[in-house]
């Protein structure tokens, strides 16, 4: 019973200090943020190998947020700002109590951590972090809010998946991936609460391009 005699896999995974390419050393919580940025910040010199996946000069749809990886990170930052604001509003709305409220708070705090990490990242790469958008969300009933939350999270996961192959720096890619799977977890948890399939696309999650994503969130951005 090798597994049962040890702490959970997750705590073992989380305490694994460094992957072989020093990509991530994240254990969560605010103290991990500095380590996260330190571990991920080596792309700023941008000597991007031609063998690195993605890039290729194709349009990513994130150009208006900046060039290359900075543009992609700022696009992600904008989405994370939106998610953070959404959860803050939901907590304030008083529509949720108990374990659902705890889940919403937890997810909201994780989105806030993503905002911090991405902001730090953009700065480390010499870019200017995208501004926080002004947002407004329809918060009518618990059910409709959960549905909106699921929509936003599924979209967020698809947005990261859509950009991953465009990212040039391996460290930036590692960071995006570590956020991407957390968005996937959020999406699945919310789908579960709603009694929906945890894998709406089946065995292979579908990516979403920036244009589609930005169009979907447009109604919630008021300035």
């Amino acid at each position, binding site marked *: 019973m090798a597994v049962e005699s040890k702490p959970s896999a997750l705590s073992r995974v989380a305490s694994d200090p460094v992957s072989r390419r020093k990509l991530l050393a994240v254990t969560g919580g605010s103290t991990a943020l500095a380590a996260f940025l330190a571990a991920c910040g080596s792309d700023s010199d941008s000597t991007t190998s031609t*063998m690195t996946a993605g890039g290729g000069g194709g349009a990513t749809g994130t150009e208006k947020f900046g060039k290359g990886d900075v543009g992609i990170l700022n696009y992600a930052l904008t989405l994370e700002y939106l998610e953070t604001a959404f959860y803050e509003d939901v907590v304030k709305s008083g529509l949720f109590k108990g374990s659902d409220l705890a889940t919403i708070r937890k997810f909201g705090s994780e989105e806030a951590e993503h905002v911090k990490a991405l902001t730090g990242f953009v700065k480390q790469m010499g870019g200017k972090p995208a501004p926080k958008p002004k947002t407004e969300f329809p918060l009518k009933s618990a059910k409709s809010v959960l549905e909106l939350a699921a929509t936003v999270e599924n979209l967020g996961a698809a947005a990261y998946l859509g950009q991953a192959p465009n990212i040039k720096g391996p460290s930036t890619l590692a960071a995006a991936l*570590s956020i991407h799977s957390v968005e996937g977890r959020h999406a699945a948890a919310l789908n579960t609460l709603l009694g929906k399939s945890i894998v709406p696309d089946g065995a292979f999650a579908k*990516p979403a391009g920036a244009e589609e994503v930005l169009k979907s969130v447009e109604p919630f951005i008021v300035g």
Partner: protein
Amino acid sequence: MSDQILAQPELAAIQIDEDSEDLSRSDVILKGALAAGAIYGAVAVGPFVGRALAMAESGDVGILNFALTLEYLESAFYEEAKSRAGASGDLKSLINTIARDEEEHVGALTETIKKLGGKPVAEPKFDFPYSGTGGFLKLAQTFEDTGVSAYNGAAPQIKAKEVLEAAGSIVQVEARHAAAIALQNGAEPAPVAFDPALSEAKVLKAVEPFIK
């Protein structure tokens, strides 16, 4: 196909490593080299092809075979769990969903490896030491979280864009499984804001006890 026809005469003249037979000419890196060979002549690209083959072997194909091993494990685990985990209701249908996903991942990875000219690893025999639904859930959590971290650790080393897309689309599904299993376990579906990455060596060490 057209590449093969075009490149065939050059290919015969290029010195290729002995163990490169199982690498097809459809490999993305090799393709570029062969196209260059058609223009600049076989001699000039000979060394590059050798390097490209070496990279494909230890690179994307290696990563995909590593992922395939994990998917074999998960697939076998959930297939067996259908009759062994003592599940009912929501958990039962969750197991069916995950079993289907993992089986599809095995199929997709096998195909991709073949397309890259690699040889898919054989399925190992597994032994899962657990009893009851609780034991199943605990082990399932281990496998899903390890799977997420394994893909997140390996993905930045992937060279071909298409392979990275496939890995990304699979890892998101693994993360979704992990969250759903956690909820069944009464645990946090997303315990940390950044999923950790795990090296191949660490992952293999974690799953070793389950391989006969």
